[in-house]
């Protein structure tokens, strides 16, 4: 009597052979991978071969993807981008602090603080309702127009203020949604221990709320990194403005592509990371 005729359990095998389902699923996986590969390859090939056939391709290539211009301008663009990073670096903490303050203003319940609450509501309504570039124009050109002495006429100060005003309004709303997301039972538990409302907010609600909204706020700060470029409209020569200067100098658009690349190198990993955090949080909740 040979082994094969024995039922599975009696054959005494020690290495687990794949089950029928595992074999089937592996086959399905292989097939999907094959199809995805063929489909992607054909699309890429189509683009690579067909786009250069377009009548204007040579001209576009010359003025947008010019290797010589790219090499000549890229270091200068990187240098100008440092200014973007600096403006971002001092704006972001100001925005975080202001946003938190505004969120707390909107959440006050005491009647004596009603004006604060009103202020919080008006603030978020107004600054979420305006295009960023408009606020930058009005504040960036308007305030220095008062004839203030140096350094108080600097576009850096007023441009930063404009960014802080607009972005803190969004951050405030995100934090407020985080505060609302904390279950009432947490406040009950804190109240039942005799904690004051203030302590409940500070030690129980806010730490959880802020942790919950980290991914949402990261997306806002990624948007901020891009919107720093808008300050170029009131003076600072950051990367977008610098690319414009190079464009005029070389009569070529390649510097804009270079600037775009610099932004992407920073924003794509940041966006991915924010998505990763968001997914992790969603998984933790379910």
């Amino acid at each position, binding site marked *: 009597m040979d082994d094969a005729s024995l039922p599975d359990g009696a054959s005494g095998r020690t290495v687990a052979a794949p089950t029928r389902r595992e074999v089937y699923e592996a086959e399905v996986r292989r097939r999907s991978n094959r199809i995805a590969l063929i489909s992607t390859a054909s699309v890429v090939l189509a683009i690579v071969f067909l786009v250069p056939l377009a009548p204007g391709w040579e001209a576009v290539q010359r003025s947008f993807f010019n290797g010589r211009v790219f090499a000549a301008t890229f270091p200068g663009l990187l240098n100008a981008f440092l200014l973007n990073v600096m403006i971002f670096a001092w704006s972001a903490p100001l925005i975080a602090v202001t946003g938190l303050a505004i969120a707390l203003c909107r959440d006050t319940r005491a009647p004596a603080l009603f004006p604060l609450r009103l202020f919080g509501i008006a603030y978020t309504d107004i600054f979420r309702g305006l295009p960023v570039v408009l606020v930058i124009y009005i504040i960036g050109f308007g305030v220095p127009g008062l004839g203030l002495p140096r350094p108080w006429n600097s576009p850096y100060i007023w441009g930063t203020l404009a960014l802080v005003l607009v972005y803190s309004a969004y951050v405030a709303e995100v934090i407020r949604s985080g505060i609302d997301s904390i279950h009432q*039972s947490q406040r*009950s538990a804190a109240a039942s*221990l*005799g*904690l*004051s409302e203030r*302590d409940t907010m500070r*030690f129980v609600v806010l730490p959880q709320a802020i942790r919950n909204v980290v991914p949402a706020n990261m997306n806002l700060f990624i948007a901020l990194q891009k919107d720093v470029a808008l300050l170029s409209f009131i003076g600072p020569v950051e990367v977008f403005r610098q690319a414009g200067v190079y464009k005029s100098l070389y009569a070529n658009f390649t510097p804009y592509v270079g600037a775009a690349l610099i932004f992407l190198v920073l924003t794509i990993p940041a966006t991915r990371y924010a998505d990763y955090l968001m997914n992790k949080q969603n998984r933790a909740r379910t």
Partner: protein
Amino acid sequence: MTAKLSLRGVRKRFGDHEVCKGIDLDVADGEMVCLIGASGSGKSTLLRCMNLLEPIDDGTIWLDGTDISEPGLDPQPVRQQIGIVFQSYNLFPHMTAAENVMLAPRRVYGRSRDVLRPQVERLFSRFGLGDRMDHYPDQLSGGQQQRVAIIRALAMEPQIMLFDEITSALDPELVGEVLDVLRDLRGQGMTMVLATHEMGFARELADKVCFLDAGRILEQGPPDELFSAPREARTKAFLSRVL
């Protein structure tokens, strides 16, 4: 004998629904009172009214002869006297077990961590959690979390403890460890009011059992009396369903 906690004609409504329809109840010092009754009979709401988590609409609550149900009264000092433990533990998930316990004594009584830590350690080891102090709530089982919640309430040194169906969310094999804690507290002479579905436990340890039905205390008495010879038909019907 004057009662530690007295309720007279307590009414509470949520919108159109009156949950407590005139409750009279006395809890003597060191007594353990169990509230039994179907879900929705008003047990939880009554407990939440007792430590002023829910303001009552009518009636009076006396604590040591002081009216604590006066509208506009600051509820915080009262809540320090009357601790409550919830069915769903409600631990603070971003703090370790020890931090959960120390937060309120630190902020309300102004005690330092250094002073509190040894006291808290004693409480944790007394309830079999000596090695769980620095774990986060999501690293603890339901029974462990509920014991931490009890320790958190005890750390405020309340005179009365309220327990709102604290074993109802637990897996059956974890119920025992939480009931042991209550037994321990009973032995220490803590004044306690429990809303519970654990009839065996109520029968074994309670001084008084109250049967709530549709927002009223329909019947109350010593457990032997109420469980073996209920007077009201509804009490009989309820007990025959759960026993």
